[in-house]
């Protein structure tokens, strides 16, 4: 039994209700809790107002309510170098990046974890909906019990050494219960709205944001066979399977993005939600992380998610010699998107994941998805 009073837990606090309750629960359990706010992005507007200031103010109020010390740390430079640069590079390459996965890997559970350890922390806790379980000498990552909130998808790159030092005190709670605990304890953030979207974009218009960093190159929108259907505003603004914002009217089924041709700057569109061109049989994943630190040697069956909050699909994972894997779908999948994460599960256990690099159809990589 560890001595909780002498076990220091640094809680990554965002000013939201989840991390507030995380800190409260740990404090109630008797740990030596320290709250730290991470400032990763400067969005100060012309009036000098910055959402980080508002959020930090909420961190201060909550920490004072539960009587724990609070500090802030600035990772703007690291975030820019490791997350934002990757984010822009992926868009430049015509893919749809997942900055949250990268932020967890490079910032929250690397730079921030190092910072916590430099403060004498035994553990780093966050308000993620996920669970860590130690079996023998191995740490397993288990889905959060709230199916709708489970965040293991974003945590798929965590390693054994990271998991040995993290706590997810909300993993066994439904979100409703977290809100209830916050309200019952009158936490300042009890009724604060959950943040949505990518953290550094926030509520802003995504197109406008991206255009500040990447020049948009408008071009042609055609069917795969080359029939022109209109103009696109820049390939980076579209993702596979997208229906909104194409501006193609007329009779028949609605139009969807089915692919991109980066070289010719052409956006491919086709009609019908269930258009065959949106479906594929498999994918190639790179940058794999296996949470138990044992990359598979043989093919195996499991389930997978290709997007956050999607239902699991049955797949077969086929390891390749270079560490990459082929993933074969039991049933054809719609709108698999390069750049997004593929994350593997065996029942409730998250096995790890990687980045979707190529899409396979009829045993071939298809080139029209970008």
């Amino acid at each position: 039994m560890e001595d909780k009073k002498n076990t220091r837990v640094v809680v990554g606090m965002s000013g939201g209700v989840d991390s507030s309750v995380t800190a409260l629960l740990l404090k109630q359990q008797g740990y030596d809790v320290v709250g730290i706010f991470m400032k990763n992005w400067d969005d100060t507007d012309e009036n000098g107002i910055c959402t980080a200031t508002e959020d930090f103010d909420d961190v201060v109020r909550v920490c004072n309510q539960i009587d724990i010390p609070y500090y802030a740390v600035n990772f703007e430079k690291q975030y820019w170098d490791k997350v934002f640069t990757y984010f822009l590079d992926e868009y430049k390459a015509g893919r749809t990046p997942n900055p949250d996965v990268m932020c967890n890997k490079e910032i929250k559970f690397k730079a921030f974890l190092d910072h916590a350890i430099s403060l004498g922390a035994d553990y780093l806790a966050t308000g993620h909906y996920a669970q860590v379980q130690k079996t023998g000498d191995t740490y397993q990552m288990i889905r959060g019990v709230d199916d709708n909130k489970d965040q293991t998808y974003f945590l798929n790159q965590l390693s054994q050494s990271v998991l040995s030092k993290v706590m997810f005190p909300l993993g066994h709670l439904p979100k409703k219960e977290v809100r209830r605990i916050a309200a019952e304890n009158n936490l300042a953030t009890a009724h604060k709205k959950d943040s949505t979207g990518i953290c550094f974009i926030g509520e802003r218009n995504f197109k406008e944001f991206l255009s500040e960093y990447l020049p948009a190159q408008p071009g042609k929108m055609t069917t795969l066979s080359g029939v022109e259907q209109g103009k696109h505003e820049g390939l980076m603004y579209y993702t596979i399977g997208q229906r909104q914002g194409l501006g193609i009217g007329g009779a028949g089924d609605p139009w969807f993005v089915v692919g991109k041709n980066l070289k010719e700057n052409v956006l491919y569109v086709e009609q019908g939600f269930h258009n065959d061109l949106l479906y594929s049989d498999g994918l190639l994943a790179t940058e794999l992380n296996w949470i138990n630190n044992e990359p598979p040697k043989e093919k195996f069956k499991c389930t997978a998610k290709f997007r956050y909050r999607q239902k699991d699909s049955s797949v077969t994972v086929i390891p390749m010699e270079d560490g990459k894997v082929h993933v074969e779908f039991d049933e054809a999948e719609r709108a698999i998107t390069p750049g997004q994460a593929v994350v593997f599960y065996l029942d409730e256990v998250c096995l790890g994941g990687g980045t979707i690099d190529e899409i396979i159809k009829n045993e071939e990589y298809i080139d029209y998805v970008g």
Partner: protein
Amino acid sequence: MNPIYLDHAATTPIHPEVIQAMVPVFEEVYGNPSSVHHFGRKARQIIDEARRVIALSINANDKEITFTSGGTEADNIALIGTALANKSKGNHIITTKMEHHATLHAAEYLEKHGFSVSYLDVMENGQVDISQLVTVLTDETILVSIMTVNNETGVIQPIREIGEILKDHQAYFHTDAVQAYGMLELDVEALGVDLLTASSHKINGPKGVGFLFIKNSVKVESLQYGGQQERKRRPGTENVAGIRGFQAAVELVANDREQRLTLYQEYKTFFLQILEKEDVEFSINGDIKNTVASIINISFPGTNVEALLTNFDLSGIAASSGSACTAGSVEPSHVLSAMYGSSNQTTVNSIRFSFGLANTKENIEEAAKKVATIVKRLAIN
């Protein structure tokens, strides 16, 4: 763990005698100083007496002291009030790159409203470059605002020389003496200053009180409108108990300033000796021979402010970087940027330690040893 306070430049503990002086005011004197009856007069007497004592402390006349809510308000009146009242004489203001934000942000406000502001450079020794003052001074200059002692480095500025330069110029000379008042002998006549800011809570008085010395001849426009208080320069019912406390703090300093300074200087020397003995790698920002006894600013190569301050606090050491925070995270120091350039590492690895009433030789020793341990641990990583 008893936390040790090494942040007296941020604020100071109230001296017990100051509290003693304030208690009867809270208990007995509730009249409004502006009222024309017995109760009002009692309160007015207290303010008048405090004004007399405080005026004397800087060799000024009673009527030249305007009580404010603190240093920030006094700086704002000094800059904005003076600029607005004298704009017919010109629209140019001179200050420095190392001022407190109370001055810098007031200057930025004036820039937005049509004034032009020159920000003087700061030399590596922490002093303003006065040779530059002569070159930027024009017939349009109406105000020069230069702090007496820098709040981050503790470096004393050449106020008398600046006063001399400005003697025959139309520009008024304001000095923010918040860190100097109580530490240095300040004689407004000898220094040649027209406006001077001071604050109570930096000298063991209560928070929420300060004053602005405004020389008789200086025209100042009020930033606030209401009653007749403070010759309309700062209307609003006076903080009577606070002003009484401020007076008590000023009297205490007048009595034992030399002893205090000797003691704080000993703490500073002792603190540095221990760091040296513990083989800590450090350098001092600004010319230490020219600093006030209570402040020392130290750069620890290979570390960063946030990790240092957080580690210090978790070990019970209260210090500061002296500079601004946004969303709780410490911005690189604008003072050290002015001295060394904004890319210099000292701007992100320096800590201000400031000594005072809350210290003893024992807690200085304990603090220095803890600082040494933390710095050595962080500098390796």
